[in-house]
């Protein structure tokens, strides 16, 4: 989009370039304008105007639909991600420290991360039924690889000089892990948890779309089944907003918690 601006008025871009938020606001306005235009044609009856979606969005906030749905999705998401967080970081730690476990565990997680594991979700119903546990499993399935692999990389790549320093000053095996290896890896471990949450959220939504519709996923399928497309698109918009806002906040927290120097050299 900016390309066009650049062609039309070189001067306008020069002025705007030093105020990035102006550019961003302009591009958001442009995309929403496109959406509105697409809705007015309409591209298809199932494609609502942005204004209708916004109205539906406001309505869903006031009548508590969003609150109820997100509370229901949050259940399996939080349980699932905290399970993987504890298990994943531990697995990453062990794999980072012992080459035998690394040999055994690493390929499996690399395989899991590269494979379209979403296809397994419909299967989960056969073991865990269609309730809460199935959704927790879906969240774990999708969030585990990124958490484990990041924790492993954080632990396995502790700078050699720090390890030698630990030995030179007689840090025992336990102290070496607690006072040097884990702090050095904590930047990457936290990044892993952040990505794990995003993947977990995808897992939760997928489970709700593929297994039994509850929570946020159900908003999409329910409003689609009664052809209330403004509310369906409002639900999709809410998912994107919630996800990007929470991930950006986590990134800010990560920057503050792990000052630049924290990232291993």
């Amino acid at each position, binding site marked *: 989009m900016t390309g066009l601006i650049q062609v039309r008025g070189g001067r306008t871009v020069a002025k705007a370039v030093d105020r990035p938020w102006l550019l961003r606001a302009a591009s958001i306005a442009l995309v929403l304008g496109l959406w509105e235009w697409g809705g007015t044609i309409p591209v298809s009856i199932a494609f609502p105007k942005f204004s209708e979606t916004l109205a539906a969005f406001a309505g869903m906030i006031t009548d508590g639909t969003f609150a109820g749905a997100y509370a229901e999705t949050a259940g399996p998401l939080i349980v699932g991600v905290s399970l993987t967080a504890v298990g994943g970081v531990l697995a990453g730690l062990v794999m980072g420290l012992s080459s035998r476990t690394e040999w055994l565990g690493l390929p499996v997680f690399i395989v899991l991360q590269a494979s379209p594991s979403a296809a397994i979700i419909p299967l989960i119903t056969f073991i865990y039924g269609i309730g809460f546990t199935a959704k927790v499993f879906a969240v774990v399935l999708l969030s585990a690889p990124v958490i484990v692999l990041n924790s492993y990389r954080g632990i396995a790549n502790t700078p050699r*000089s*720090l390890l*030698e*320093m*630990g*030995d*030179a*000053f*007689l*840090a*025992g095996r336990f*102290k070496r892990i607690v*006072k*040097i290896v884990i*702090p*050095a890896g*904590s930047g990457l471990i936290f990044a892993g948890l952040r990505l794990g949450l995003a993947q977990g959220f995808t897992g939760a939504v997928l489970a709700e779309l593929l297994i039994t519709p509850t929570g946020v996923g159900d908003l999409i399928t329910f409003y689609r089944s009664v052809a209330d497309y403004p509310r369906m698109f409002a639900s999709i918009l809410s998912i994107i907003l919630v996800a990007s806002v929470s991930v950006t906040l986590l990134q800010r927290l990560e920057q503050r918690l*792990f*000052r*630049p*120097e*924290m*990232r*291993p*050299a």
Partner: protein
Amino acid sequence: MTNRTSPTSEPTVPGGVRNPGDPAVRVVDLAKVFAGGVRALDGVTFDIPRGELTSIIGPSGCGKTTTLKIIAGLLDATSGQVEINGTPVTRPGPDRAFVFQDFALMPWATVLRNAAFGLELRGVPRKEREATAREYVAKVGLSRFEDAYPHQLSGGMRQRVGLARALAVDAEILLMDEPFASVDEQIRRKFQEDLLRLLSEEDKTVIFVTHSIEEAVYVSDQIVIMTRGPSQVSKVVRPGVDHSGGSGHIRRSPAYLDWVERIWAELQGYLET
């Protein structure tokens, strides 16, 4: 180095009682072959007199740092032995503290916590270890930076934290691996002064690896010159530079310049072959 006693070579008194004369560290016929089959050391033998600064110099890749790390117990020797005060050692111990070439500071910890880390690992309570650390941080001239983080300091300042950390544990022997390699020339000279002043107050034995001849001659009581890898000891010399007159005077004194030339001549042989 006024309070230094000149070394005498009386025999070691039986029973290992530390006679001021006997060497603090004895390296006997040390050899090291790395996993890939690279032979780094081929029978290195020398003594480190107690309370003195001995530097190890030699062509690059001659195993200076390897020798130092074996003495520190960070590397195992393939054969040969290192004795500290008469007893053989193979692992790091409280009697030795190491100053790393690349500083090895914890990026997430402040200057004070880094300096106190050696004591922290020994379980010394916080108040006590921070008091000691604060003392040495002041001695290396960084008291205004106690709460700063490593990434906020210059290379030189970071190395001082490494030095403070090594001194704080009050080990008898200080091992320094090219501590001033990553510092520019002007600051380097000042560091050499500070180091000598500091060591005069602390009764330490120092082993100092460097590739700078001027630095070796200026700071050392004894210099171990090593041959090209797989290295042996080519010569052990004692420049005996009189430090009483202040650095400007010393750096121009004929004795100092002669020694620099002699060592240069010795090392040059290895560069050509």
